[in-house]
């Protein structure tokens, strides 16, 4: 309780608090983290991250960031609304629902693996599993469920798994992301994701932040880049380019390929940590997946 109080105090503090934060970062870097430090630093990261976008796009409502580039680009928003009026991913939701309800060979089902029978829980993912010491995404949890019940895991980028994820997201529409960083091991995973997000890579030498923070909203090649705030809320997505539904990690791989960096494995530790960081940054936004993208 005292911790929360202190955190709040720092959040509402003025410049001095900011200076304190800086010294906290310095301490953290020297490997001297305390429980207080990492919680306060995550809070500060979220505030800074969200403030960045508020400053960049002062006219955009915070809640709009769940809509990706359509939050900031009126011309493409109109076409997107036409798509969302009767979106092609409705077939994926139906397929996902059928898959979800079909029992495994052992008689159990997906519902047995999840809280609230798997309904309305998308916003709780990804979370840090302190026992396993790793980030668990919804897609990983689906496959863990399958394997625990003697079923083969599904491929992570498209098809049945993407459709299951789409169905589970569809029952969570409007639920708000509030991903926690519960302990120091979680903070390590979060920090790894953060480091990935800000590291330049690929032949083009771009970081996630270069395209989706620095030049977010500007034309990069033929497209306007989306703001990083809210990236995970709408996934999985039906992309016109894919002509089908795909997962967030498929999109990560595509993004990496665009900057000529060799993609890392879907649901590997690196992309899961990245998803964790991005989801923590998007705290307070509503889940609205699946959704359609260009």
């Amino acid at each position, binding site marked *: 309780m005292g911790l929360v109080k202190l955190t709040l105090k720092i959040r509402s503090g003025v410049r001095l608090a900011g200076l304190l934060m800086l010294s906290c970062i310095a301490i953290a870097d020297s490997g001297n983290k305390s429980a207080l430090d990492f919680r306060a630093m995550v809070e500060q990261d979220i505030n800074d991250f969200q403030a960045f976008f508020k400053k960049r796009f002062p006219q955009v409502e915070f809640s709009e960031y769940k809509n990706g580039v359509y939050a900031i680009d009126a*011309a493409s928003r109109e076409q997107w609304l036409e*798509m969302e009026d009767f979106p092609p991913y409705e077939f994926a939701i139906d397929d996902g629902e059928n898959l979800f309800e079909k029992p495994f060979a052992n008689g159990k089902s997906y519902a047995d693996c999840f809280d609230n029978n798997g309904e309305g829980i998308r916003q709780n993912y990804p979370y840090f599993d302190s026992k396993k010491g790793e980030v668990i995404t919804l897609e990983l949890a689906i496959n863990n469920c399958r394997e625990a019940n003697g079923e083969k895991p599904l491929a992570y980028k498209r098809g049945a798994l993407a459709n299951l994820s789409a169905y589970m997201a569809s029952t969570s529409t409007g639920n708000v992301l509030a991903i926690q960083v519960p302990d120091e091991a979680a903070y390590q995973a979060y920090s790894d994701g953060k480091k990935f997000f800000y590291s330049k890579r690929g032949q083009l030498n771009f970081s996630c932040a270069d395209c989706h923070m620095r030049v977010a909203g500007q034309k990069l090649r033929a497209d306007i880049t989306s703001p990083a705030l809210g990236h995970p809320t709408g996934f999985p997505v039906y992309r016109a380019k894919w002509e089908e539904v795909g997962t967030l990690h498929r999109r990560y791989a595509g993004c990496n390929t665009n900057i000529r960096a060799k993609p890392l494995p879907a649901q590997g530790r690196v992309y899961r940590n990245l998803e964790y960081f991005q989801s923590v940054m998007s705290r307070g936004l509503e889940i609205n997946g699946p959704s359609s993208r260009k």
Partner: protein
Amino acid sequence: MKVNRRSFLGGLFKSVVCIATATSLPRMVYAAWNEKAFKAETLEGALKSKYPGLEVIDSTAIKLKAPAIAENGAVVPVSVKTDLPSVKTISLFVEKNPSPLAATFHITPLNVADISIRIRMGETSNLIAVVESNGKLHRVQQEVKVTIGGCGG
């Protein structure tokens, strides 16, 4: 601008689907698929095959709604609406597609001349809507830019 999808979907009717054979379908009174027009490789050829002998005039009485820059050429939302009298058909052509004719809608007195469809455009091109009304072809056109080589936002 806010759409609550859950409530929207809640109002959606579950459609019952069954597979029938072509022969058991009630025969429609309309003309069959105009193969020649759909396979024509030029705008002019498609127009002539579709509407032989009809005069084409530019019109301001047709509302063609399409994006100036398509998000993706694979899915371009297009709507056509008109108050012209006695509309018989509405056709959509994409000048630079390999086969320009995209669709023809047959309008009966029961219909409202207001249709929407999502089409493919291979490259930046003129999009042409033609409305057949009172024995004449009324035309409106608009350029739709299709960009390639983006990273998709």
